[in-house]
C-alpha cells in the first residue's frame, strides 16, 4: 500500500459517501426541512473538499514515483536519436567517397567546372557530418 494508493482510497471513500447522500436526496420520496438542507449541503461539500485534498496528495505521490523512470526514458530517447545520427553518418561517408571519386575524375580530365562542382559537393557533405 503506497502513499498514493492510500490517498486515492480516502478520496474515493469521501466521494462515495457524498454520492450516496446526493442519490438519497434526489429520490422522489425524500423530503427535508430547510435546516436539514443546509446541514446536508454543507456535509456533501465538506466531503468533496476532503476528496479534493486527498486526491491532490495522491497525484503528488504518484508523480514522485515516476521521477526516476522518466529520467531513464529521456536518456533512452536521446540514445536512440544518437544511434540514428550514427547511421546517417555511415551513409554520409559513402556519399562522400562517391563525391571524392567524382572530384578525382574531374581532376584527371582537367574539367575545371566539374572540379569546382565536385569540390563544392565534397565540402558540403563533410560539413553535413558536423
Amino acid at each position: 500500500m503506497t502513499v498514493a494508493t492510500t490517498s486515492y482510497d480516502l478520496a474515493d471513500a469521501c466521494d462515495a459517501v457524498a454520492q450516496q447522500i446526493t442519490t438519497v436526496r434526489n429520490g422522489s420520496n425524500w423530503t427535508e426541512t430547510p435546516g436539514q438542507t443546509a446541514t446536508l449541503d454543507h456535509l456533501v461539500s465538506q466531503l468533496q473538499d476532503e476528496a479534493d485534498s486527498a486526491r491532490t496528495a495522491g497525484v503528488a505521490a504518484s508523480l514522485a514515483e515516476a521521477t526516476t523512470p522518466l529520467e531513464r526514458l529521456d536518456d533512452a530517447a536521446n540514445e536512440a536519436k544518437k544511434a540514428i545520427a550514427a547511421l546517417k553518418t555511415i551513409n554520409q561517408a559513402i556519399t562522400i567517397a562517391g563525391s571524392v571519386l567524382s572530384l578525382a575524375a574531374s581532376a584527371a580530365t582537367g574539367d575545371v567546372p566539374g572540379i569546382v562542382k565536385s569540390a563544392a559537393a565534397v565540402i558540403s557533405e563533410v560539413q553535413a557530418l558536423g
Partner: protein
Amino acid sequence: MAPDPAIVQSLLTTYVSEPRWRSTLDEGTDVTPAPDAVSLTTQRTEEAKGIVALDTGITEYMKALGALSADSVVQSSANVSDLKNGLTAISSASPGLGITSTDVALVSEFVQATADLAENGYRDAKLAQLIGDNDASFQKALDVQIEIVNRAIIPSINEYKLTIDSKQRYLRTQTKSIQYLYSRILSADQDNADLQLKAATSYSKALGDIKTADAALYANRNNVLTMAMFEQVKGPAQEAYKAFQDYRAAVATSVSK
C-alpha cells in the same frame, strides 16, 4: 489511440479547476466555500505540468524507438548510387586504371550489401538493448500515468458532475429567472464534463494497450535481427570482400602482363 498532448492537456482542465470552481459555486449559498480551494488549484496546476511531462516522456520514448526502427534509417541505396556514379566517372576519366563496368557494379553491390548488413545489425542490436534496458522504467511510467488518470482525473470529473447535480437541485428552490440562467450554464458544464470523461477513458485505455504491446515487444526483443546475428554473417562478408580484392589484384596482374 495514441497518446495526444492536446487530449492530455484538455482532460486536465477539470482536475485543475474543479476545487476552485466548486468553491465559487458555493459562494452565495449556505455552504462554506473550501478554505484551501485556491492553494489546491495552485498545487494541481503544478501537478498538471508533471502529468504532461510524464506523457511527453512516454511519447518521446516511443517516437524515438519508432524512428530508429524505420526502414529509411538503414537504407543505404541512395548513398551507394553516389559511389557508383563516382566510380563510373573515374573509370571513364582514367581508363588506365582498368576499372570496368563490371567492377563498378561489383563494388557498388558489395558496399550496399555490407552497409545494409552493418546498419541493420547495429540498429537492431541498439533497439533490443534500449527495449531491454528501459522496459521497467517504461512500464512504471505507464503504470503511474494510468493510476493518475483512473484514480485522480476521472474521479475528479465525476465529482464535478456530482456538484453540477447538487447545484441543479439547489436551483429548484430559486426564482425562475435564476433557474433559467444557471441551468443553461450547468447544462453546458455537464456536456463538457461528459466529453472530458470520454477523453480520459480513451486515454487510459490507450495507455493500457501500449503497456500490453510493450510487454509483447520486450518478450520478443531478442528475436529481431540482433548484433549476434550480425556477428555471424560478418565473417562471410569479410571473406567476400577479400575475394573481391583478390579478383581485382588478379585483373591488374593480367592487364600488366
